Every structure is written in structure tokens, then in C-alpha cells.
């Protein structure tokens, strides 16, 4: 049983932020999160660090922060699943007494001035004219970046279940509608399904508007014991449950790669721990490196049957005013790209009721997902503004 809560949230400037190191942004995010919680940095005795594309923030961040003596300090990396795993790790450390107040921070600066967004994902093999061995064969095959590999997964779903590009587009359109009310979102111009369909191919079947942004910046959260969190500056966001699951890419007959993801096991574990089912979820903040990631996560979490994700996301269900509030800040497609900190930060804002014009009508149960690799790593959190009733209290 978790009795941890998120007490602070710190978000630096995001997007085309140039001339600052990832470490500098990480330190600022931690300071902002501590200030948000109303605690001095000296009260922080745990530090979990995640960096993204550049992997350039280390545990020396502790020196830059002048925290108190630390009981927990490490870098972590499960790609986009890391943020959820950091919060779970912090909650476990608090439960066992390793630390009392843990800062979890993500920072990355992949964007460079005068370079395309795609260049942030450039391969070091790009300039090599002669390529050796099986790696060269693979390069010549041309399936060498996440856009292409996720497109393969989306195509597989389309072939198996009849999912369409327009259905994926419904996800992008819904998230843009939410983003219009998020001051932090990079993309706030109205978007129609026609805009999605007319946007250029990135890797058919994925259009440009199926793909996430790339951002520089940092986000941090402060996790502490729920009892302590209730006396701090902001309303606590209680951590009801967590889960993580990882699948290797088993390229062999019988593989369900791209069709079923570790979201299935991760989501089931988190909801079991929290004592909820998908029908209890008011807000879902789902990792959206691509529109397809949202669709397959909805299926794997059990919001609909496998293969019915396309129909499920249609008819504005995920948009403002729809039946299920999903990615209420615009997500990584329209908001900002901070790996798993994008859905987590928006979940905290929604759980606190700080969403302003985009606040979901109900926020008692907020589900957060993280996804990394090519649908290979997954984390899930169940958050709530309410302290969870223990089973004994429920039955009493």
C-alpha cells in the first residue's frame, strides 16, 4: 500500500530553449518543484535523475543543488517509461525509510538552433558512406529511426484490425483542442482532421501530425509521505498505485510486437494496486510519442477491446467535452516533449484542479502512462487528489 504523495511540480521554460545545459535546466526544475511544495532544498534527501536523448545529466547534479544529505541518489533510464518508474521508486524509498523527500527530475536539450526537429534524432551513422557488417545491412534496409519503427507498428494494427489514418488523426485533433487552453503548449492553432490528413508523410502510415514535438527543458516533481504532504504548500496528489513492464523485441513467428504492448501488464498491475478499474478513471494522461501509442495504450489498459481502439477514439470521445478526458494539456503531440514528465506534469495539474479552462470535469482518479523504446518499456501511475481509503476503511 502506497502512502506517498506528489507535493511539488517544477517546470522550466520549454521548447526552443537554447544556450543552457540540461544540467542547468534540471537544477532549475528541482528548485522550482521545491518552491512549489514550500520546502527548502535542504529538506530534499533523495534525488532521482533522468535525461533524454542526450543522456547528459549525472548524479553530480546533487552538488549543483546543495541539497541536504542524501539517502538516495541515482540516474535512471527506461526511456519514456522513466518518469513513472522514478515516482514509484521514490514512493518505495519513502516507505522503507531510505529517504523522506525525493526530487525526481527529467531534463534534455536535443534541439539545436537552426536545425530541424528531425536532426535531434539523427544517427551517428548518418555521415558514414561505408558501413560494416549486419549494421550496414540494417541501415540499407532503412528502418532505422523511431518514426519508421512506430509506423510499422501502426501499419500492423491497421492491417490486423482495419484501423485507419483518420482514426489516428482523431487523437491528434482532440489533443490539439485541449492544447488550445494550455499556456505551456507549443502548438495552439486549431487543427482539423483535414489538416492532419493533409500534413506531409513522415513515414506512411504516419503523417507529420501523428508525431510528437521535440523540446528542450526540464520538469521535476517532489515525492514525500502523504502525511507530510498534507501540511505543505500545495494540495497533495496521492500515489495510489504503480506498475511497470518491459518486453524484448522478439523478432520471430508468433510475436505480437506493435499490436500488444507492455502497457497491458503495467496498467493491470497499477490498477490492481490502486484498487480501481478503467471505469473509475476520470482523466488519462497517456504517453503519446505518436498518435498510435495512445490508441494501443487505451486498448492495452482495457478502455476498449483489442482492435477496437480506432472506433473508440472517434466521434470526439477524447476531446474537451468528450466521454474520456485524455491528454488534457495537448500531450507531446501539441504540448511539449519531456518524455514521461509530459503526462505526469499534466496529471498533477489536473489532480490539483489547476487546469483552468482545460480542467477536466472530474479528477478523482488520474491515470498516467509512460512508454519507451519501440513500445518495449512501460510504466503506469494511478494518482488522486484524495488519500486512498484502505480496504479496511472501505469495508468498515
Amino acid at each position, binding site marked *: 500500500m502506497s502512502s506517498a504523495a506528489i507535493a511539488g511540480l517544477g517546470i522550466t521554460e520549454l521548447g526552443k530553449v537554447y544556450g543552457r545545459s540540461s544540467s542547468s535546466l534540471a537544477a532549475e526544475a528541482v528548485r522550482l518543484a521545491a518552491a512549489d511544495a514550500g520546502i527548502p532544498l535542504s529538506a530534499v534527501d533523495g534525488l532521482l535523475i533522468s535525461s533524454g536523448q542526450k543522456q547528459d545529466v549525472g548524479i553530480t547534479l546533487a552538488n549543483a543543488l546543495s541539497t541536504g544529505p542524501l539517502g538516495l541518489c541515482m540516474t535512471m533510464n527506461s526511456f519514456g517509461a522513466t518518469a513513472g518508474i522514478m515516482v514509484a521508486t521514490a514512493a518505495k524509498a519513502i516507505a522503507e525509510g531510505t529517504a523522506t523527500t525525493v526530487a525526481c527530475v527529467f531534463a534534455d536539450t536535443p534541439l539545436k538552433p537552426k536545425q530541424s526537429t*528531425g536532426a535531434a534524432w539523427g544517427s551517428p551513422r*548518418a555521415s558514414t558512406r561505408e558501413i560494416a*557488417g549486419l549494421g550496414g545491412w540494417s541501415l540499407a534496409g532503412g528502418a*532505422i529511426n523511431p*518514426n*519508421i519503427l512506430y509506423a*510499422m507498428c501502426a501499419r500492423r494494427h491497421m492491417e490486423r484490425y482495419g484501423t485507419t489514418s483518420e482514426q489516428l488523426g482523431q487523437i491528434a485533433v482532440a489533443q490539439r483542442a485541449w492544447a488550445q487552453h494550455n499556456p505551456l503548449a507549443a502548438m495552439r492553432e486549431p487543427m482539423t482532421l483535414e489538416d492532419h490528413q493533409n500534413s506531409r508523410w513522415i*513515414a506512411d502510415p504516419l503523417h507529420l501530425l501523428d508525431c510528437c514535438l521535440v523540446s528542450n527543458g526540464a520538469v521535476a516533481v517532489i515525492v514525500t509521505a502523504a502525511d507530510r504532504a498534507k501540511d505543505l504548500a500545495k494540495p497533495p496528489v496521492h500515489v495510489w498505485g504503480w506498475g511497470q513492464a518491459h518486453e524484448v523485441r522478439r523478432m520471430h513467428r508468433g510475436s505480437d510486437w506493435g499490436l500488444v504492448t507492455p502497457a497491458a501488464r503495467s496498467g493491470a498491475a497499477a490498477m490492481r494496486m490502486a484498487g480501481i478499474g478503467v471505469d473509475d478513471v476520470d482523466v488519462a494522461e497517456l504517453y503519446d510519442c505518436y498518435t498510435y501509442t495512445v490508441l494501443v495504450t487505451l486498448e492495452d489498459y482495457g478502455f476498449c477491446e483489442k482492435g477496437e481502439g480506432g472506433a473508440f477514439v472517434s466521434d470526439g470521445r477524447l476531446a474537451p467535452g468528450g466521454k474520456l478526458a485524455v491528454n488534457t494539456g495537448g500531450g507531446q503531440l501539441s504540448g511539449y516533449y519531456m518524455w514521461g514528465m509530459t503526462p505526469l506534469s499534466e496529471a498533477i495539474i489536473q489532480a490539483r484542479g489547476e487546469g483552468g479552462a482545460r480542467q477536466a470535469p472530474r479528477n478523482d482518479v488520474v491515470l498516467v502512462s509512460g512508454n519507451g523504446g519501440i513500445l518495449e518499456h512501460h510504466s503506469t501511475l494511478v494518482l488522486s487528489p484524495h488519500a486512498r481509503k484502505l480496504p479496511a476503511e472501505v469495508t468498515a
Partner: protein
Amino acid sequence: MSTPEVSELPPPFPAVQRDRATEAFFDAASRGELLVQQCAGCDTVLPPEAKTCFSCGSDNLGPTVVSGRGRLITWVVVTHAPVPVLAGAVPYVSAVVELDEGPWLMVRLVDADPTALAAGDAVQVDFVRSGAGENTGEMLPVFRPVGSEENATEEKA
């Protein structure tokens, strides 16, 4: 902005060079044979890059020649080169194919009409010279829809 001459573009298949670990693979390719791996313990056939057996976990793997026949699992039409050495290749089709023997390969699909493809389509290995037109590279396994292969055979007959 001028359109580059075709000769200014890299070839559709960058010049791939063998290394010590892939001498047998590329020798087989030059003979028109697709060399993959097979588990010595349980006979499971594995992709060339496998390090351990998917079935039993053994790392005792050895080379084996496969039929080169398979079926299409999924594919992508790539219109924007992900790296400069593929600039001469776009638009191209990357695909996952399942060999009849079981393993999946991520490969280039050639001579394919992307609008006519469907999961489960029969495909067959073929071999192309990498780096054609400049410094010559190794022969590379690629796949083509069997329909076009059959047509080619009929034309020869």
C-alpha cells in the same frame, strides 16, 4: 533551389562492407543464399543478428541457409530519408518479413507497389549490389513480392 543531378545522390543502397563477424553472411549472399542462425540445442531458426535462442535461451548458435521464402508482416513507405546516405533511396519501402522457417527480418522491400501490399503477402529474397555506381559494396539480401518474381520468371521462360 536546384534539383540535384541523380549522380549527386548516394546510391539507393549505401556501400556496405563486411567485417570479420559477417564474412560467411556476405559470402553466402554473393552466392545468392540467405544465411541466418540456428540453435544447436533446439533447432530454432533465428535472425542473423540474434545473440541467444528465442526458444531455449542457448547461445550456441550456428549458421544455416534458409529458403528465402516468407510473408509480409508489416511495412512502411519512407518518403523522407532518415539519414543522408539514404537520400538516393527515397521513396523506399522498409518491411518486416517472416521467413518460412520462423525468424523475422527488417529489410528493404523492392519492386513493390505500396498501394497493393497486404499483410500476409508472399515474399522472396533477392540480392542487390550495395553502393552501386560508386565504391562497390557487398551483395545485400532484399525481399520482393512473389507476384513480381513470378512475372519475372514467366518473362524469362
